[in-house]
């Protein structure tokens, strides 16, 4: 039983001919036709209303159904360009998925890969890529749409540039050719993208940052190609917030002038929220990009459900993940373990991941330096310990026990790291609302000792820390110091200023930029 398919774009009808009448007697095909208001016409054709955007889904379903009922899909005869494209795409996709998988999961050494390396080395003179980076870039260039879930430091930016360089140098009439890059990411990533561009291509990028800081008129004019020179911009950088706020203009940007864009979502976990506004904008714009890239080192921070939007972005017309959100959530909660292997198999061809072990990092060494408390601090600590620890069990039984115990333990910790912190309310640290769980200084029998404590002279660990920092700075090294307490960071800033050329404090309260509702938090 041979069935032929055609498409009439003017009527927006899928035309089913050949043995369509016979096939339509089968309950499965008949039900499908009923579901989509298919009708039998006197000319022997079955017509199914099909808007262009539904053509791929219709083709996929009809092909599957005909296969199930033992009919053959005839591919000869008159088919419209639109249907032919879908048919070719379907055929290609099956082979493509397998090859994409092979590229990353098996050691390939093909002529194609060697050509890729040659092209990348020719264009990207400023960087030498290591093997895994080249493979990941080749995977992306081959697939054009892919995720890169490599760990931080793996060089995801360079990998994107390598793939972009290859696709960009292809002839203009090559269907894989791309003209420019649109990178969506946090504001803090813009500089890195620009710097890396220069480092890879050994020339400054023709780039434009489109953010809330840019006046609206200017933003619109750039995206719509009105601003002189805007058409020559190769690297456009924007934030998730701006992409969402100016979605219509970005739509025009992606559609205008026959320019083919590689759209990159950096730190793409920003679109993991299934119903987020920013995610929705990115997903709506995705089909307009010639190539789509997802970059994140933490693809599923909350669970498998976070993967849904990422794979929807790279292939908007395909259900790569194959599971609805509720099922993915159940997998995350470990209530559907049987489904996990299938999920992994489904997404494997479409992402690469360079793990920490692949980076050949030198082994890290950890040296612990024990610093004993000196007299004044020892007295304060011991007094608090005697007051707090014996009461903990009793206090846990009371209301609000947990908050009170937490507040007390936090105080004990402050006594240990820097008793000066005991002078300020816990709320000042922005850690949590202690409500009435905290104690007041006057309740303590070491209140005077706390008041007279001076970290700059009495805190032994501060002296050790300053010495260590000084030694490293002296050898032109860099120092990164973490502290749990904001008060300690301020203390360190005061004490280290002057000891090094550049001292900066970064905390959760450090805004990077702010306008248009955009705020980036380091």
């Amino acid at each position: 039983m041979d069935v032929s398919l055609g498409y009439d774009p003017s009527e927006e009808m899928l035309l089913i001919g050949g043995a369509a009448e016979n096939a339509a007697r089968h309950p499965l095909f008949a039900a499908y036709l009923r579901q989509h208001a298919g009708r039998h016409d006197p000319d022997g054709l079955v017509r199914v209303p099909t808007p262009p955007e539904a053509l791929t889904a219709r083709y996929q379903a009809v092909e599957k159904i005909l296969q199930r009922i033992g009919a053959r899909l005839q591919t000869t005869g008159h088919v419209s360009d639109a249907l032919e494209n879908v048919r070719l795409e379907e055929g290609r996709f099956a082979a493509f998925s397998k090859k994409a998988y092979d590229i990353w999961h098996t050691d390939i050494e093909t002529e194609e890969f060697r050509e890729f390396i040659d092209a990348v080395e020719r264009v990207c003179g400023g960087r030498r890529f290591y093997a895994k980076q080249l493979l990941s870039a080749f995977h992306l260039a081959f697939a054009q749409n892919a995720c890169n879930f490599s760990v931080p430091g793996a060089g995801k930016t360079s990998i994107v540039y390598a793939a972009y360089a290859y696709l960009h140098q292809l002839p203009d009439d090559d269907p894989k050719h791309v003209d420019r890059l649109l990178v969506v990411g946090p504001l803090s990533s813009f500089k890195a993208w620009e710097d890396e561009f220069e480092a890879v291509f050994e020339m400054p990028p023709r780039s434009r940052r489109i953010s809330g800081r840019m006046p609206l008129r200017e933003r619109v004019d750039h995206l719509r190609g009105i601003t002189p020179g805007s058409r020559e911009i190769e690297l456009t950088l924007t934030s998730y917030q701006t992409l969402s706020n100016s979605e219509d203009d970005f739509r025009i940007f992606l559609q205008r002038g026959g320019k083919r864009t590689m759209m990159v979502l950096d730190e793409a976990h920003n679109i993991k929220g299934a119903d987020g506004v920013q995610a929705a904008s990115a997903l709506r714009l995705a089909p307009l990009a010639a190539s789509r890239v997802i970059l994140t080192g933490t693809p599923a921070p909350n669970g498998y459900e976070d993967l849904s939007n990422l794979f929807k972005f790279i292939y908007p017309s395909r259900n790569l993940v194959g599971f609805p959100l509720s099922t993915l959530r159940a997998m995350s909660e470990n209530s559907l373990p049987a489904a996990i292997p299938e999920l992994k198999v489904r997404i494997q061809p479409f992402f690469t991941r360079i793990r920490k072990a692949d980076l050949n990092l030198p082994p890290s060494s950890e040296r612990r330096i024990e610093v004993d408390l000196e007299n004044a601090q020892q007295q304060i600590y011991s007094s608090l310990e005697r007051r707090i620890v014996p009461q903990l069990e009793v206090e846990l039984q009371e209301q609000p026990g947990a908050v009170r115990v937490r507040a007390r333990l936090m105080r004990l910790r402050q006594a240990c790291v820097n008793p000066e912190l005991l002078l300020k309310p816990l709320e000042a640290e922005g850690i949590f609302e202690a409500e009435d769980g905290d104690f007041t200084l006057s309740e303590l029998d070491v209140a005077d000792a706390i008041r007279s404590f001076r970290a700059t002279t009495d805190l032994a660990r501060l002296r050790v820390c300053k010495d260590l920092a000084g030694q490293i700075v002296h050898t032109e090294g860099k120092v990164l110091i973490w502290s749990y307490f904001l008060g300690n960071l301020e203390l360190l800033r005061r004490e280290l200023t002057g000891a090094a050329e550049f001292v900066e404090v970064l905390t959760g309260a450090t805004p990077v930029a702010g306008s248009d509702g955009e705020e980036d938090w380091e």
Partner: protein
Amino acid sequence: MVLSADVRVKYLSALREKTEANQVFQKLHYRGSTASHKVCSIDLDYLIYNRHNGRLEAEMLTWEQERHISPDDYDDALHEVIDDLLWRSATPRNKQTLDDLREKGQQRPGIVSLDGVIIDGNRRAMLLRRLEKATQVKQYFDAIILPDAYADNQSEIVRLETQYQMGEDAKVDYGPLQKYLHVRRLNVDLNIPLEQIDKLMNEKSGNAKRLIGTMALMDDYLEHIGCPKLYTMLKDADGTKEGMFVDLYSDLNRLSGGSAKVPWAFDPEVDTIQLRLIQFDYIRLGEFADAKKVYREISHQSLGKNFFSNKDIWEKFRDGHEQSVDPVTTTMGSLDDFVSENPDQFETRVDAARARDKKWAEAVRAPMKQTFGQAHYKLGLATEKLKPSEYLKRALDLLQEIDLDGSTLTAASENLELAMEINRLSYAIKKKFERAPVPA
């Protein structure tokens, strides 16, 4: 004889204007406000039945479909058909009401439209008609006459009808199908939004959506069995197949809405159509909807205890069904063909459709039971985790059931393959014991 609409309107308008001594009034909520309306005594000849009456809508739609009658036609024949359907819809109860009417007269007034369509009180009017015939004494139907003709303000009148038939004033238990047909009429034919329908029916929000979705499934089922719009085919000996449709609607809804936790990546379109069709076939066979509702094992039972949630079981079940049932359904021929092949054998198309269904059921009963049984057995194994000793005991018990002396064992070559497979497995088990460390 059914009088023309013009004549009826003229008579009823005049009656509406006339005020009698000791006029009785009754309150009625209509067109958004409650007011007192006159109750008039109406000559039965000026009234026609409401073909959308809840008690007989499925029969009426089927009747119209069978005879290709337009929903606007109303003649003597239809009048008699409805009269007869109303009588047969609840014969014992009708007999009792007829006695009451004879003894006490009409106790509660009805409602009629200005063109004489009975909105409330069809059954009472039918009984009064019969009383008139039997006693040869002129009978009158006491009713409020609405200011609108049915056709001129159908939407408002149907709202009123809904309140009387299905809202808090519901007086009679209508057939289970009626609520589905009625909601479809309100929403699809009269464009009344679903939220408003919920209010009219005094139901929780979402009820009308569920009803209309279930109705769409029932319509699709009738198409599947080749009996479009023959709504009486939805009824069976136990009442209707409603429960199975309700369960199926909920299953498909969960699957398409993504709330069903199915541990395999099913195709949301093709696999759900297949599930629907297989369930339709079980509804059509009608032998799995007993008190135990075993059909629920196909897709309704929760916590993964259903065929669809277990990929291997589902695929074998689906394939078995496709191989044994679909060819029968495909080659069954249309209902028209069946009627032509059996001329003058059936009084109605519904009778012919039932006979055709029986023929279908004869052909598929055994394979459907077998396919279901196999899937049921495998589901038990998949969802019931037993200790190894229990499995071994069960396997032994089952093997001992085989008649080793009978000829059927060796008649099928596949039995040898199965025996060898069992042999391989039992050998592997034995080896496990040999290699296991000896317990201290």
